[in-house]
């Protein structure tokens, strides 16, 4: 769906992004993470055919952004960091205008607009002036304009910014529903806001991609994350020595001990959960719970961005 090779964008002397390369498959939901000023918006604007790259190749659906921007524009829906709304229009008139602008046939116009309003829960606000809407509703109109013409690729730049917790949950639910039908690229500077809805993440820092992968892959990219939490019943000391005997285990600590139950924390190099359980069973210790101690995504993000800053 999207192929980006060596994408670089200069604003005057300053490089906003340099030498970005990534590919996105059809139907994926990709999270684009980075602190403010990391280059997220610039990258998304290039993909949205708003800005032209200084160098590098960007292909969307087989079309090149510099050579066939029009073909791409027909296939994408773009929500910039500030929703591009005309305050003096009503929600419905605005969406009709956008749909027409993006080439929706006159016969389909009303159906598409109704559908977009239904998906974003705007149907009962259709006659209201955009200037009278609250921030949350404005953001929804922004998403509605991006999907009104049924694009294959949706580019949403910080759709959750400035929303309250309830609205964030609603926005996440909306993005989840879009999955499958559309390929979605969604950016945020707050990881928690888009965690769990993305198939993969790209972490960008000072214009460069510093990490990529699924939530689990990102956590294993960091040394501290090969930790496993176990709950066992039986002799705790016996369990500790059995675990230490497993090759690849660097540290075992007893985190909690109560009434014959012990919570253990094991630091390993790589994925060793199966080996750990086997060793415990062989030592005649009952295993009640095995958990990968997933370093919370938020921590990973902070570590990644601070480590390179």
């Amino acid at each position, binding site marked *: 769906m999207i192929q980006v090779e060596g994408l670089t964008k200069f604003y*005057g002397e300053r490089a906003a992004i340099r030498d970005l390369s990534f590919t996105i498959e059809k139907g994926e939901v990709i999270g684009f993470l980075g602190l403010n000023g990391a280059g997220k918006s610039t990258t998304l604007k290039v993909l949205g055919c708003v800005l032209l790259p200084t160098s590098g190749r960007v292909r969307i659906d087989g079309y090149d952004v510099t050579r066939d921007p029009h073909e791409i524009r027909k296939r994408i829906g773009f929500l910039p*960091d*500030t929703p591009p*709304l005309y305050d003096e229009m009503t929600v419905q008139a605005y969406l009709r*205008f*956008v749909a027409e*602008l993006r080439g929706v046939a006159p016969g389909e116009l009303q159906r598409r607009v109704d559908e977009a309003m239904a998906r974003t829960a705007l149907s009962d606000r259709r006659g209201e002036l955009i200037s009278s809407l609250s921030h949350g509703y404005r953001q929804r109109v922004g998403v509605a304009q991006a999907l009104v013409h049924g694009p294959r690729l949706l580019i949403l730049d910080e759709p959750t910014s400035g929303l309250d917790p309830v609205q964030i949950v609603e926005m996440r639910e909306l993005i989840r529903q879009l999955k499958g039908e559309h390929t979605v690229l969604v950016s945020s500077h707050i990881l928690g806001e888009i965690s769990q809805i993305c198939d993969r993440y790209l972490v960008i820092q000072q214009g460069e991609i510093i990490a990529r992968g699924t939530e689990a892959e990102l956590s294993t990219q960091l040394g501290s994350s090969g930790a496993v939490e176990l709950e066992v019943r039986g002799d705790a000391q016996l369990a500790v020595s059995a675990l230490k005997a497993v090759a690849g285990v660097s540290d075992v600590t007893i985190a909690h001990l109560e009434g014959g139950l012990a919570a253990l924390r094991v630091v390993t190099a790589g994925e060793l959960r199966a080996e750990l359980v086997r060793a415990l069973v062989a030592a005649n210790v009952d295993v009640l719970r095995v958990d990968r101690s997933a370093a919370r995504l938020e921590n990973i993000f902070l570590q990644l961005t601070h480590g390179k800053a």
Partner: protein
Amino acid sequence: MKNIWLIARRELAAYLRTMSGYIIIAVMLFIDGLLFNAFAIPGTAKKSSEILADFFMLTSGITMVGAVFLSMRLIAEERQTGTLALLYSSPVHDLEIVLGKFLAALLFLCLFFTATLYMPALVAAYGKVSLGHIFSGYLGLLLVGATGLAIGTFGSALSKSQVLAAVLSGVMTLALTTAWLLGKITDRPLTDIVNGLAWWGHFEAFRTGVIHLKHVSYFVLVSFIALFSATRVLEARRWR
């Protein structure tokens, strides 16, 4: 074509639904009426056609100044509020954006022209003027308005704020207005060129009831250059 009309329609609706456009036209009408009373009508033994010619002269100046203010928001406002990204990310050519905006402003300006019709009507009621003279004058006004709006569109394309857009376009139209001052200190071949740049020199024939192709082409050419430049500015802004 369809996109031009689509953008023009939305822009015109924005003019009609917000106050600023009406206020500008109201001020233009007020000043026009005032000047008409103060300068066009008085005078001993003035012919009706002379009053009409004076009316067109006054109105052309007001049209030029008004065009600067009417057009300042066209592109600068979209850049300010971020809606330009919507047009940029849609399958629309930059030329279509520029032409649509220009067309909307021109149609709105026609509201002003319509509202000034009572003045020539008064002259016609109390004196004797030919319809051809009125037509020629209004054609001239339309061309002056188009030129002013085209320059204003260019200024608006260059700027981030409406104030800056008005200042830029104001400077450009002022330069076109006062070009003849430069003609006073230049030598022969250059003098003709500099004098030819001043727009009111080309309006002179229209206000006295004469339509001349070379004067029509002047306004068309200046408008074309300004709109073309505005399009290039929009294109260039994608690179930075």
